[in-house]
């Protein structure tokens, strides 16, 4: 098969019009909107092709979101595929985990979980508040928080469920939507984006002045230029994101400043009349929901180069479930912190473990390392190992045999080991008398399965990390209990 090349495909370029229409649309569907614009300006004929909603914009929507949602269910009434594309283009980035930034000092905010997870529905995007269950299992409580969709009028409609009780999976937007739907339970809200990693949810009191995206962007970049966005809370989740709002974790102070700037933008404080102020007060008094700010957790999942990265869940020492976030820094270090809502505000700011160099020890391991792991108890959900936990205390030597069996049966084969440190003993020296170097040392055991566990030299446990999401869905999700 040597002279296979056709001689006929060298003379003049194959024209776009020689492609059948479905192929033309397939080519265009891989382009971005601005490239479509560009293409439209090549000739009159392609202007009309690029304006064809049911052909081109349907294909565009399908290419980008077809596998994730039901494109045809979104489109109804005045909703065109082009409008849908524009809308989803803005919302796409919501998918994933966000955490509430700051505690606005309200009781409602404090009472609800700070972690929110957005996912695709058939004709809407939904956000749920997620929190570890208190049952000592791997269950994750997922309660409805926010729905975002388009009305048949082509308007963005966002509803917030303050109680977290309305059934998220019902096709709310197909049957019940309209402004009459369970007004008692759902609150209409506005969702305003700032950059890619920050949004605000505010109650829509129908008096909210709308400002264009550009204005907001402009405001944001002005207000952020003077302050340090370095994320000095050390969460370090904001790396790898460029552009405005590149810090994944704005210090709360900054967020407040930015918000105040927004709140004041339409009426500079000095020439605000008393009447306006009173109106504003009345408006605020009617509010059922205090604005909440959310910051994206950008690196939620492990990658080949960062196998430990992301959000994990594990049973911690008090046998309750907790969420952990492992973040890499740019110079090869990692830090793990608890994510979520803890009585002590600052507890989540100290790392659970950290290392400045994520360099694994490969097998075969030294005797010392082997024995350090082999004698440990894996902290597990209560039901699964009830019989063992009933035999407190753990330190008892005679339990070891049982533990060994337990350990082997679960077949957590250690693939690589990483040395880590914990901060706790350095922070509270009075507990241990003198600071014992040994007390701060720990290990990460990465298993063949790809997940890992960690523990410290001074105790006898392994906290195993489990995935929170799989294929865009929360694993072990349960509804909030009725009470």
């Amino acid at each position: 098969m040597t002279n296979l090349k056709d001689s006929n495909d060298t003379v003049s370029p194959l024209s776009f019009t020689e492609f059948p229409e479905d192929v033309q649309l397939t080519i265009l569907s891989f382009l971005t909107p601005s490239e479509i614009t560009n293409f439209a300006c090549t000739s009159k004929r392609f202007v009309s092709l690029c304006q064809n909603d049911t052909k081109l914009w349907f294909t565009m929507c399908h290419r980008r979101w077809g596998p994730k949602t039901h494109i045809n269910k979104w489109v109804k009434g005045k909703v065109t595929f082009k409008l849908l594309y524009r809308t989803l283009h803005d919302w796409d980035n919501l998918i994933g985990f966000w955490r509430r930034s700051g505690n606005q000092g309200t009781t409602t905010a404090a009472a609800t979980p700070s972690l929110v997870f957005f996912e695709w529905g058939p004709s809407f995007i939904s956000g749920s508040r997620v929190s570890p269950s208190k049952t000592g299992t791997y269950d994750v409580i997922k309660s409805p928080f926010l729905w975002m969709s388009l009305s048949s009028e082509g308007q963005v409609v966002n509803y917030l469920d303050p109680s977290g009780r309305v059934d998220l999976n019902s096709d709310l937007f197909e049957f019940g939507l309209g402004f009459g739907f369970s007004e008692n339970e759902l609150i209409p809200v506005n969702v305003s984006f700032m950059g890619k990693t920050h949004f605000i949810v505010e109650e829509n009191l129908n008096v909210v002045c709308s400002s264009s995206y550009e204005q907001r962007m402009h405001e944001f970049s002005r207000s952020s230029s003077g302050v340090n966005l370095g994320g000095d809370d050390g969460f370090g989740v904001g790396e790898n994101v460029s552009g405005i709002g590149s810090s994944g974790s704005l210090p709360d102070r900054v967020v407040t400043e930015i918000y105040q700037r927004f709140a004041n933008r339409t009426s500079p404080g000095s020439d605000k009349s008393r009447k306006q102020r009173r109106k504003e007060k009345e408006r605020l008094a009617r509010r059922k929901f205090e604005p909440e700010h959310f910051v994206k957790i950008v690196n939620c999942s492990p990658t080949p180069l960062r196998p430990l990265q992301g959000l994990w869940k594990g049973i911690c020492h008090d046998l309750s479930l907790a969420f952990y976030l492992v973040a890499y820094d740019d110079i090869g270090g990692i830090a793990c912190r608890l994510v979520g809502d803890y009585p002590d505000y600052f507890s989540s700011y100290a790392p659970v473990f950290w290392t400045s160099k994520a360099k694994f020890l490969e097998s075969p391991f030294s005797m010392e390392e082997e024995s350090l792991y082999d004698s440990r108890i894996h902290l597990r959900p209560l039901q699964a190992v009830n019989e063992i936990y009933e035999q407190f205390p753990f330190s008892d030597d005679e339990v070891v045999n049982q533990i060994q069996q337990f350990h082997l049966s679960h077949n957590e084969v250690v693939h690589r080991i990483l040395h880590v440190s914990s901060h706790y003993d350095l922070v509270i020296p009075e507990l241990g008398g003198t600071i014992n170097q040994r007390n701060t040392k720990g290990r990460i055991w990465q298993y063949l399965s790809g997940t890992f566990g960690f523990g410290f030299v001074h105790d006898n446990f392994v906290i195993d990390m489990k995935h929170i999401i799989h294929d865009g869905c929360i694993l072990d999700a349960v509804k909030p209990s009725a009470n």
Partner: protein
Amino acid sequence: MAEKASPSSNSISLKTVDGKIFKVSPAIANQMLTIQPLIKDSDSSTIISLPDVAAFHLTKIIEYLEGKPAAAPSAVDAFEAQFVKDLSPEELKGLLIAVGYLKVNGLVDLMANTVAKLIENKSVEYVRKFFGVVNDFTPAEEAKCRQEHAWAFDGVDED
């Protein structure tokens, strides 16, 4: 051609526009959706002619269908990147037409995406030249068109 005698009785014969005959297994032929209905009724003696497909293109299509790894997305990506690497823009376009005609599983998207990448971030003039588009705008109309189509996604950076 390399295939002198039919190796197995149930192979399918495909005849390209330039008169070359290819014998392929039903498993391969079945992935060309356009000829799928014809395969059921054919035996080893029938020859299916493909008026829109040149031998060069069919060779590439068979190379793709036979070589594509079954599992591991990363292996598929590497294979596909290698597959399109050495094709010239004109070869890509010609192959896309053939692939579009035969409706080859997976290959339409790959080829269309590869062609689309060639006009990513290119000027209107470049795209015209690339696709042989005749400019039928007057300068005034064209300026207007460019202005009107600035609708898209104000301030959003494209990814």
